[in-house]
């Protein structure tokens, strides 16, 4: 299992800020992102690559997680 945090627009679109995703086997962060998007159909419209933090450190889609990690997805925020 990994703990997911969604921020700003992603949280609004999904209607959730925190959720757990089951991890049957080791997955890449890209695969985790896809399963989050599947869980919330409204997120299908998100096409850009989010900023990802795995355990509060910048991470890429290719990075593998094994369970127990905390993954945060930050959308680009433009407002000022």
């Amino acid at each position, binding site marked *: 299992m990994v703990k997911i945090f969604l*921020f*700003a*627009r992603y949280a*609004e679109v999904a209607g959730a800020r925190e959720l757990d995703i089951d991890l049957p086997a080791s997955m890449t962060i890209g695969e985790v992102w896809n399963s989050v998007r599947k869980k919330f159909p409204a997120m299908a*419209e*998100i*096409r*850009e*690559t989010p*900023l990802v*933090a795995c355990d*509060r*450190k*910048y991470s890429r889609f290719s990075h593998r997680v094994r369970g127990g990690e905390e993954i*945060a997805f*930050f*959308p*680009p*925020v*433009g*407002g*000022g």
Partner: protein
Amino acid sequence: MPKTFQELMAGLKRQVAEIEPDQLKERRQRDGNLVLIDVRELDEYKGGFIPGAVHIPRGFLELRIEEAVPDRDTPVVLYCAGGVRSVLAADSLNHLGYRDVQSLIGGMGKWRTQGLQVEKPEMLSDWERQRYARHLSIPEVGEEGQKKLLRSRVILIGAGGLGSPAAYYLAAAGVGTIGIVDFDLVDESNLQRQILHTTERVGVQKTESAKTTLLALNPRVQVRTFTERLSSENVTDIFKDFDVILDGSDNFPTRYLVNDASVLLRKPNVHGSVFRFEGQVTVFWPGRGPCYRCLYPEPPPADMAPSCAEAGVLGILPGVIGMLEAVETVKIIIERGDILIGRLIAYDALRATFRELKLQRDPDCAYCGKGRKFPGFIDYEQFCANPAVAAG
């Protein structure tokens, strides 16, 4: 125990190492680590000092020496007017564990009579001394830091939600030149958060309204207004006269443009953005950490990128984020503290949480990747309207 001052001095002269002016000159040329400290009072210092010397009056020496010279193996030379107070000061540093301390024989007097170089200090005026008194009493700012602030030039992108509090505090702090780029007019719906503007100035150019407020707060600040839309054509010309860029823009095309210009000009870009109850702040400093494109190589599709007008924002939130941007700007100027480079702070006002994440440079970043040539400015409107096409 010595009974008289003369006996005290005679004793100290045996313990404290001394150096002649010409030897000092020669030693400084060969030893770049050497710290030269002027221990005279302010009035004496104002009359001229040895170039490169740090001014710490004798009465503050023990209090401030660890800040000025953290490593006790650093060679230190002290001087005063005639070479007496500096011997007393050197003795004190020896007691504090400094291992290589010398006193300048004959002090400033002998230095001058030998025709060696003297510099006149750039001093704060009495007005500045009073105005910035609370800065002067913080060691991290002090007189040196305040002089840096007074000489500094900050360009703000946008006089809106983020730019307002940032500009207000930077003007209060004594930043010498504040530039503001904004083409928009003050709208009534801005006033819930854009605190530079007032009800009676609805319909006025934001740059002019901002200038009026900032000059009322601090008439000595130079405010330069650029009442135009920031574009690929004017960005380098506008940015070239400024040291720090503070991004308070409200749209993605401008954010990518500001980023690219900051990479090209290698100037720090203090970045903040807000959405409803959430805000982000970080510092992009080319060569020292990631740039905006390392984090977000492509913008969100235009229909997915709501502005404050569409999404709404808690009025105070850009206040918090804009002020964090102002704090980082001041730290960059006074060269103190741990600047928010390679870290991003995400603030959630509704849940009252700050979350920090460590960032990384993308070695393959199209703009700031190592060894990359600047690819040039692009059509930012098109890039953000249809990212996939423009990025491809």
